């Protein structure tokens, strides 16, 4: 196997991506697919805001509106935010800890394809009789009553995509525990690796309840189950519990990696060690832990009783403490630093006030008596967009600029980047700040229109104008990406010049085997230490140059996923079409069969020989 860079034909490139198990290529696919879903979700958001721009609007019908808001929320959470974060975890985390790849490259590919096919399946609902329309939370009393197949697409699609996420979570955990380079102790791990670690642990324990909830929904709707049907003794509240036992940790699965990204940015562009590193780690772990204790704050108005409400209210407020610690640590990292206001840094600076505002409204909602007023109003919509857009999306946009040179060896234009930021940031506050007041004025969430006499016209119009600003911001980003890709100017090593952590020490473009020799980690911000000591070759290495063992590419992950995708159609049309059961069986047979092939076949990978490595100057 020679590692000399070759020009490949188009077909060969496609085949390469279909079969790849390389974490860097999988990262690119996550980013591309997640980005596409982000745009789709964004278009849905624009449709919502157009409909609500003026009173008594009939731009879309009430039923279509419900489908749009459901798909907007579901797409953004499951198919955009999480996969894009997974993309960065894949691209960055193994390099940050000096690993060859993730622990299970094959499963890594499988996880990606499951996400993609789950997402495609969900979106096919638009063309096959209508999208789900019971909200992203899909409360059972609504979703059981929903006609057509929309909810079935939701349940089956998320089941497939969720399996991918679960696999990814285990993979990251094992990678971080077992594959850190020599010297990379837990308390030297960069914050992004730490937050990936804790978020993965949350995935491990939060996704099974969702799996079960969706499983019940599938059984109730397609196979004659009675879990949620009260006339048969079922109980609709069970769904709410299962969903939120998943759902609250899920919001931390999203925000913790965002915290990690911002921690990297603050240290990098303040050219200072992250303030209070150990308390940051502690806060991350504590947030992850408390995240499982608070799910019922979404159910204050269900009637669990004052004792339960009080306990969950206090637990919820407790999370503000570790979160506050983080905010102060970031501020003190900037304090006295030698600050460079690059595009990623702009996002980080914008993130702090935005996220704090979202946290404050969170605490307000955590007060159960007050939540009786706020629940299901636009106040809630404002809250979670402040934390998710002001936190997660800003982090994602920051990371796109920050890690683009690492992933593609090109620098996005800083000028256009700043334009994107300002449009997006102003648009974001314009859209959502005013929704707090709409909520306080009594506007319920998820209504398709409102009357001219209700006094909500102006605020809704302002909110819609803000959304247009955000859209312009995203369009500028897309233009920026296209220009950068076409120009294709190499960014070179350590593109931000002040890289502190291991991923910036790797030569560009990143060789497919990552570090030629496993680096030796001599402290927190290990690359920075080497640079301070005048090391010109990059890193100190832990081993002499020797053969590298690599896994083979495989088409099996794709086929396994395809089987489940086919099976899902069988389940969907069960009891309606004659071919349903055969298709279900066929799909599962494909999946199980390809699994068997995988385990029977010998697949030991290959070695890159020392001599080839010595001649290799990098390149993919």
């Amino acid at each position, binding site marked *: 196997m020679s590692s000399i860079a070759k020009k490949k034909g188009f077909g060969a490139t496609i085949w390469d991506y279909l079969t790849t198990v390389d974490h860097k290529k999988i990262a690119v696919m996550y980013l591309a697919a997640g980005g596409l879903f982000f745009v789709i979700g964004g278009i849905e958001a624009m449709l919502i805001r157009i409909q609500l721009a003026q009173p008594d609007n009939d731009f879309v019908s009430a039923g279509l509106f419900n489908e749009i808001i459901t798909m907007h929320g579901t797409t953004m959470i499951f198919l955009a935010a999480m996969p894009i974060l997974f993309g960065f975890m894949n691209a960055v985390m193994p390099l940050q800890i000096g690993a060859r790849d993730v622990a299970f490259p094959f499963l890594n590919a499988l996880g990606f394809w499951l996400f993609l096919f789950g997402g495609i399946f969900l979106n096919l609902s638009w063309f096959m009789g209508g999208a789900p329309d019971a909200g992203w939370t899909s409360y059972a009393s609504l979703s059981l009553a929903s006609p057509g197949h929309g909810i079935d697409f939701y349940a089956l699609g998320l089941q497939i995509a969720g399996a991918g996420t679960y696999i990814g979570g285990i993979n990251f955990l094992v990678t971080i525990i077992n594959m850190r380079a020599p010297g990379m102790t837990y308390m030297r791990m960069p914050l992004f690796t730490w937050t990936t670690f804790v978020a993965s642990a949350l995935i491990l324990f939060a996704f*099974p309840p969702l799996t079960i909830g969706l499983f019940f929904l599938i059984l109730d709707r397609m196979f004659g189950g009675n879990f949620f049907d009260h006339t048969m003794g079922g109980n609709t509240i069970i769904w709410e519990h299962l969903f939120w036992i998943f759902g609250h940790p899920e919001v931390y699965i999203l925000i913790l990696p965002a915290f990690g990204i911002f921690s990297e940015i603050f240290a990098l562009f303040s050219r200072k060690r992250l303030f209070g590193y150990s308390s940051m780690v502690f806060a991350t772990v504590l947030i992850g832990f408390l995240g499982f204790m608070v799910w019922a704050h979404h159910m204050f108005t269900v009637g669990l009783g004052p004792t339960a409400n009080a306990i969950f209210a206090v637990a919820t407020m407790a999370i503000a403490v570790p979160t506050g610690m983080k905010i102060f640590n970031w501020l003190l990292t900037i304090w006295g630093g030698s600050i460079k206001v690059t595009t990623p840094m702009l996002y980080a600076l914008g993130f702090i006030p935005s996220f704090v505002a979202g946290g404050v409204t969170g605490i307000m909602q955590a007060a159960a008596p007050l939540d009786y007023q706020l629940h299901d109003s636009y106040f809630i919509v404002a809250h979670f967009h402040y934390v998710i857009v002001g936190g997660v999306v800003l982090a994602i946009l920051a990371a796109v600029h920050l890690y683009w040179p690492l992933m593609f060896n090109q620098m996005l234009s800083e000028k256009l980047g700043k334009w994107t930021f300002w449009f997006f940031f102003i648009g974001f506050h314009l859209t959502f700040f005013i929704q707090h007041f709409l909520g306080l004025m009594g506007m319920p969430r998820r209504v398709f229109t409102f009357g001219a006499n209700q006094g909500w016209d102006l605020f809704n119009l302002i909110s819609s104008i803000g959304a247009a600003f955000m859209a312009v911001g995203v369009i500028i980003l897309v233009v920026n990406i296209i220009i950068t890709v076409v120009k294709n100017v190499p960014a070179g090593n350590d593109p931000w010049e002040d890289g502190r952590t291991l991923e910036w020490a790797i030569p560009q473009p990143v060789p497919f085997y990552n570090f030629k020799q496993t680096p030796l980690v001599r402290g927190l911000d290990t690359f920075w230490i080497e640079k301070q000591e005048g090391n010109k070759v990059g890193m100190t290495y832990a081993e002499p140059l020797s053969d590298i063992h690599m896994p083979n590419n495989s088409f099996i992950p794709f086929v396994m996923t395809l089987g489940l995708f086919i099976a899902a159609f069988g389940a969907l049309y069960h009891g309606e079409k004659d071919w349903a059961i055969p298709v279900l069986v066929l799909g599962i047979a494909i999946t199980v069969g390809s699994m068997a092939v995988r385990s029977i076949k010998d697949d030991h990978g290959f070695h890159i020989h020392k001599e080839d490595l010595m001649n290799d100057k990098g390149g993919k």
Partner: protein
Amino acid sequence: MDFNKKYTPQTWPDHPEQVTLEGKNKFLGFWLFLGGETVLFASLFATYLALKNKGPSGMEFSTDTLFELPLVFIMTMILLTSSLTSVYAMYHMKNHNFRGMQTWLAITVLLGFAFLGLEIYEFNHYVHLGFTYGQSAFSSSFFTLVGTHGLHVVIGLGWIILLMLRNAKRGFSLYNAPKYYTASLYWHFIDVVWVFIFTVVYLMGVVG
């Protein structure tokens, strides 16, 4: 690392499942997976407890009239024994006795099939009484909990059989040792879950 290297009982390592990095990763990853599976079954148990004996008004089925402990007790004994036989298999793996391991695994598989047969018989019996999957919330949650366990048994059996067939001619290597090890872990897990099912569903259903 040469995966196909042949070992003798003298050179065979103490923990063959954890010698290679791949083995270590499988070992840890599988434990984590079982952690997630625990939450999965916890959700099923919680739902079952919430829906036990709940049905349309006037439902005639309830745990104390439906379940018969003798049959379930036999099933429990069979599955517990199969866990023990899989321990013997792993013991032989540590000692590099391939024939011994395959034999004990074969016994494990036979016991597994016996358990499965009795479970199918039991389900069939309930359905004939009119206690079908869609009869009530109680029936749905019962069949889903116990059936999910049954599905795990099926997967476990398929997995062990596949391993035995695949390696019948090849013998031990550091490549398949972790696979045997994780399969046996899975089998233990299935057994532990059954102990909870026996207690929570059947014992507490009849005498609780």
